[in-house]
């Protein structure tokens, strides 16, 4: 299984902090998965419809959206960070 965690307005629009899904093929990229999730419509489409507004981390490391998910256990999707 792959755990997906959401933060900030991505979390709010989807209405979930996290969820589990069946592990996709190792070659599936983060962007592929975002497109799959957005296709669910509703809050998913609102949150994930425009991938250019999203950033991601695989197993707690920032990764470009064209990175394959490989054997990562946790994918995080969120807007650009605004700390500091």
């Amino acid at each position, binding site marked *: 299984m792959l755990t997906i965690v959401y933060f900030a307005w991505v979390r709010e629009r989807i209405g979930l902090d996290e969820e589990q899904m069946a592990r996709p093929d190792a070659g599936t990229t983060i962007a592929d998965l975002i497109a799959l999730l957005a296709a669910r419509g509703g809050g998913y489409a609102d949150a994930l419809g425009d991938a250019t507004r999203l950033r991601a981390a695989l197993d707690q490391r920032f990764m470009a959206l064209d990175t394959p998910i490989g054997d990562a256990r946790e994918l995080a999707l969120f807007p650009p*960070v*605004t700390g500091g």
Partner: protein
Amino acid sequence: MKRVAVQAGDFDVAAELVALEALGGGGVASFTGVVRGGGGLIALELEHYPAMTQAQVDRICDEAMARWPLLGLSVIHRFGRLEPGARIVFVGTASRHRTAALESCAFLIDWLKSEAPFWKKEHFEGGATGWVEARVEDETKAKGWG
């Protein structure tokens, strides 16, 4: 000395500075970020990615220690609900060289802005809320350190 704290509560800037001064380095630089009021803002809510935050801030600190001859550094970042005037973030560095202390302090705060997994939501009078948008300038500034 490397001290990293990610916490909800406030912190004691004086205690951090005294610890850095005690390293005997000659120069201690610091930056403290405070919630700015105005525009009807009643609170800032800082969300973070707990599983990632501490490790990521730690990594940024290691990067600073590799780049500058530092005797010590201290980074504290708060999360949760913070009102105008409250401290959000503290960065302190100690070095024999004042330029190293000041530059690494600037580097750390720039990197925290673009590399630490925090998100800020503004709460206004009347109930309106909005997520703070990342500024392109911040990503550019962090990249400027190469």
